């Protein structure tokens, strides 16, 4: 796929978000986060730092967790974006239930990013991706421990300090096998 150089004013960008196609007339500089929040009214993804430090804007692109604030919307054409709004399918996602059950939040601002990040993280773990605390990266044997969860979730900050509940919610969801 190749595009001619598009002018600096606006471009027609088609995004697939939570299963629906949206065509926007936006400037190339519009981030995926701003496209979601300001142009499509999907305000679940949050703008915390807007510089890739806090993780509040985390969404899934083709199932992989990414930071929508450091993503240009135009770069994500052709990819399937899932936001927090797309997780509940009539009923809440098992990880959303677990966050409620384990009190994995206080103010809730970081929660959409935490949940999208954790879903991507669990998939990464299942794919066999090691982490900085995995003792032997050449081995495929890994344990879904709290140490692994904390390291793998270090890109999501919670200023209320609800980490204990967040960690419990993720561990329980992973162990129950209810993730998707």
């Amino acid at each position, binding site marked *: *796929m*190749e*595009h*001619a*150089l*598009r*002018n*600096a*004013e606006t*471009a027609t960008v088609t995004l697939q978000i939570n299963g629906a196609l949206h065509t926007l007339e936006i*400037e*190339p*500089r519009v*981030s995926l986060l701003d496209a979601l929040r300001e142009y499509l009214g999907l305000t679940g993804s949050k703008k915390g730092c*807007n*510089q*890739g430090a806090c*993780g509040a804007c*985390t969404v899934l692109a083709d199932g*992989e*967790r*990414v*930071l929508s604030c*450091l*993503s*240009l919307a*135009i*770069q994500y054409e052709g990819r399937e974006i899932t936001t927090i709004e797309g997780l509940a399918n009539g009923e809440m996602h098992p990880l959303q239930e677990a966050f409620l059950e384990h009190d994995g939040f206080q103010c809730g601002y970081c929660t959409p990013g935490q949940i999208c*990040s954790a879903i*991507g*993280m669990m998939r*990464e773990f299942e*794919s*066999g*991706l*090691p*982490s*900085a605390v*995995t003792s032997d*990266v*050449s081995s495929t044997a890994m344990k879904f421990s709290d140490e692994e969860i*904390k*390291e*793998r*979730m*270090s*890109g*999501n900050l919670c200023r209320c300090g609800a980490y204990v509940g967040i960690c419990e919610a993720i561990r329980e969801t992973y162990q129950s096998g209810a993730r998707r």
Partner: protein
Amino acid sequence: MKNFAYARAGTVEAAITMLGRQPNSKFLGGGTNLVDLMRENIEQPDALVDVTGLQAGGISELPDGGISIGASVRNSAVANHRLVRERYPLLAQAILAGASGQIRNMATTGGNLMQRTRCYYFYDEAAKCNKREPGTGCDAIGGFNRMHAILGTSENCIATHPSDMCVAFAALDAIVHVTGSKGERTIPFEEFHRLPGNTPNVDTNLGPDELITAIELPALAMAKNSHYRKVRDRSSYAFALVSVAAALETANGKVRSARVALGGVAHKPWRAHQAERVLNGADANAETFRRAAEAELAEARGFGYNNFKIELAKRTLVSVLSELAESGKAQ
């Protein structure tokens, strides 16, 4: 952020042509550094050529047992590749020590080489910075320079290169494959990044019309016994104060071969040739490792807040080599 034109390239040749056609244009990879710098007005391109969709993707095994990593392969994919994990564990460890899970899913291999310093003064438009604006001075010298360089600095710049991955590449003698309007060439990893000298605004020896297409890792059996250790202010998601990438081969209590590189200490990933000279052929013990560390850091110079890095680098080096001497015995 200033607005810009955007294009997505389908081939390496098209990417280079597009870049040449538009003045003040840049290649765009995962965007994890460039988009941030553009938002801060540090980078102000008029056009971006997106190279993430190029066929330069994928990781392949080379006939000699080395591997080739396509420039658009994401960090997570490199760290999770079987050949990388088995043959070059220090590279997987270095990647996983950097950034966060989200960023590793976005950032590309080529982009990692091209990322710019995280010096606070480089990021602060109100500060003097010879890297951002040549000739204005350096506020890091005499300023808060805890994260800054201790080796290879100049009176113009004491910034460090922020990459973890590149420290492993330096130890592994990686080869950078690039293509430009005049054709293809290779650059030995050690010659890819530059020391600041009088032109700290120029980070690399990549030509203005050149695109990184792949990183080649030559076969290196000893890299199986290798390690990357990163020392930082937080245990996760922070840049290195000091890091060490090393591979060690020992036999009968002697060092047969050593590869060592340091991160967080210089304007470029720092290959520790002085340390390697001391190590090769010497007894594989703590005393040798300390001598190697002393030799490498002999020319080190602190700037106040970063003086601690000199001793920290030595100790980290000794610690990693001691660990590798032990694990090497078992292999």
